[in-house]
């Protein structure tokens, strides 16, 4: 189970551009490493990160193995209304993790 840390300002003014930070634990196994017997360790990465704001997608990132372990993303969105900002990570081996944060916009 992946733990995630998200940092969303709890309050914002309408129209303000807010910065969101997300950090999820995941080894992002590249698929290029070899174990001590010389066999390749299979790829196991998070491939997609999607942020939705009250259900509407506002940001997306397509990740490749060159993203460092424990993928870290800082991005922006406009504070349009109060509600829920949700995050979803999907990847190899059926990985699917979600997290969300509430925001009050006045």
């Amino acid at each position, binding site marked *: 189970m992946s733990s995630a840390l998200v940092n969303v300002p709890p309050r914002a003014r309408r129209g303000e551009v807010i910065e969101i930070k997300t950090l999820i634990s995941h080894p992002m196994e590249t698929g290029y490493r070899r174990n*001590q017997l010389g066999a390749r360790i299979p790829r196991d990465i998070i491939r997609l990160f999607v942020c939705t704001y009250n259900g509407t997608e506002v*940001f*997306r990132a397509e*990740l490749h*193995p*060159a*993203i*460092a372990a424990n993928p870290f993303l*800082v991005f*922006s969105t406009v504070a349009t209304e109060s509600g829920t900002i949700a995050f979803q990570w999907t990847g190899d081996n059926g990985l699917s993790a979600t997290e969300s944060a509430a925001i009050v916009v006045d």
Partner: protein
Amino acid sequence: MDRETSRRAFLRAAATGLGLGAVITVAPAHATPEAMEDAIRKIVGSSRVSKGRVKLELPPLSENGNTVPLTVSVESPMTPADHVRAIHVFTELNPQPEVVSFRFGPRAGQARVSTRIRLATTQTVTAVGELSDGSFWSASAAVVVTLAACLEDA
């Protein structure tokens, strides 16, 4: 030269029973600048990629190639009529050229993202920005990597 001395020392240590377990360093195959060009072509098609508009921030010297902080941004009003659609990041010498693609809309407020990437060796990183008018812009930054990603295997 450094590596030769250390290998001899390691073999000597192993022979005298002080071996610490196999440390196999297999250098990964590197992609090439040509592979990066191909990957960029796949994104932009036949369109021209102009230098500018994109700002790519990377440390000139990275302490650890396993986690290199990167910030990329494109100045844009981010209105429905004029905004950044996507920013794509590439490297020329990692095992594969694609690093990440960010997709934006007017709701982004600003086209600016930070993340942490892996660099397998000292090299140049390139970011390509795609605007809503269909134009493509790029910027590059060179990073000296002192501890390459993949110095230690599993």
